[in-house]
């Protein structure tokens, strides 16, 4: 059976889709056959982040409603051999997702030999989000270091451990905390929660801290998962997070402000 990893947050705009794309790409690069599914029906974005928007013919909802087969709807990534994408429908709404439908798709993907199914959850705690986390074995909780994001993450953790299939069967979904848009300078100035604060509030194991980086926006606009940008700090941080998810132990990076050269300090500007 494939392992279902749901990337979720509660709050919108914290970097779920960026993280889903990076995670799926990272798992595939590590040699695992991986598919990433966009659960944000009606507001699909994953196809853009993955750079496959022109190749979407059939989508997740078409498959659930029996209008297309999985083989027709799956989009094979051109950069990473092991990676496939299942786009969301832009014309339907989230009521099109049914528990039986999602279960059948996950079952079929397992039979097709996928090892990891990464579910990109929409924001909120409504149907799309609950469907995305219902079959989760692991949950990656994406949180920005600010209080409203942390509170929403806490809420989604509560839903995860009460409404997911595993929880209902008396088990537990493994929780992993991923802090994104982290700015060590602002943390040092007391303008942003530190990663210790966030971990203390949420009481969840930390899997990675992704620094605020221009590389993320650039990656989104060009349709290349940021994890493939090995030069960027965000790319390196995602690669470390995926490695930790797969059981490796790596030290956390980018937690302290970069030392700036004298010239740069005088001339200003940032990286």
């Amino acid at each position: 059976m494939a392992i279902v990893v749901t990337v979720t947050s509660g709050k919108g705009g914290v970097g779920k889709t960026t993280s889903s794309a990076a995670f799926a790409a990272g798992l595939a690069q590590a040699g695992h056959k991986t598919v990433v599914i966009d659960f944000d029906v009606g507001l699909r974005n994953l196809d853009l982040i993955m750079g496959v928007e022109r190749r979407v013919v059939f989508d997740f909802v078409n498959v659930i409603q029996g209008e297309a087969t999985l083989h027709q709807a799956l989009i094979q990534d051109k950069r990473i051999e092991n990676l496939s994408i299942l786009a969301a429908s832009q014309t339907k709404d989230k009521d099109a997702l049914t528990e039986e439908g999602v279960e059948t798709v996950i079952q079929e993907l397992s039979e097709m030999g996928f090892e990891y199914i990464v579910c990109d959850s929409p924001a909120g705690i409504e149907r799309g989000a609950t469907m995305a986390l219902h079959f989760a074995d692991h949950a990656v909780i994406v949180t920005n270091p600010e209080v409203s994001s942390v509170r929403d993450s806490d809420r989604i953790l509560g839903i995860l451990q009460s409404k997911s299939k595993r929880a209902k069967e008396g088990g537990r979904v493994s929780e992993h905390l991923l802090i994104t848009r982290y700015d060590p300078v602002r943390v040092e100035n007391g303008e942003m929660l530190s990663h210790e604060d966030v971990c203390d509030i949420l009481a969840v194991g930390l899997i990675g801290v992704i620094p605020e980086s221009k590389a993320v926006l650039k990656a989104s606009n060009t349709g290349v998962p940021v994890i493939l940008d090995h030069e960027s700090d965000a790319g390196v941080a995602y690669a470390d997070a995926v490695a930790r998810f797969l059981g490796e132990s790596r030290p956390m990076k980018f937690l302290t402000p970069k030392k700036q050269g004298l010239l740069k300090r005088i001339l200003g500007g940032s990286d």
Partner: protein
Amino acid sequence: MTLEWPAECGELTHWLKSQCARAPALMQEIGLVLKPSKGVAADAIAEAIQSMESLQIDLIGLTGDPAHRSIANQLGLPWLSAQNITQVAEPTSRSETSVSSEAASRSSLDPAMIVQGPIRSGVQIYARDRDLIVLGQVSEGAEIMADGHVHVYGRLRGRVAAGVSGRTDANIFCQQFDPELVSIAGLYVGSEQIPSEHRSAQIRVGLDSAGNALIYSVLS
């Protein structure tokens, strides 16, 4: 109760000590009537009575062999005929029933509800007619309530209410106290009204005797 000695209890001091260890409250409350067997010497009886006194056991009097009546008189103890004993024994048996009914009501008490934390934002827990014990933290935005006491073995950031259905003797015990709202028997205060010295403290919260203010006491 009537104690046949030594037939029922063997060596008296030893037996009394073991009974006191098992049920100290009962032994303090109960009245004993000592019934020495035939032929027990006056000295031995005097010694037994002394050891009962030293254990603070209430001796009502002596009974049994009429030959011992004079010893009772010598020691200044009442002599109880068989008829008297039933009369005297009555309050004793009443105290026994009250103890056993207390034990019965204790066993019919609802055991505390034990919940493994963390209790997340948006989660509501209510322990009806019982105490609530939370193992772990309670997040901001969570609500925990009980008709009895509330214990939190962790950091309390959410809302907490004890004595929800009106028990003014309900308490809140907490390892790290940072709640959004605290309520006991319907009297509530918001987090801003909690004295700053009690924030993040290991604390017990109760209601004062008049029932119109919360009392904080720092634990440990």
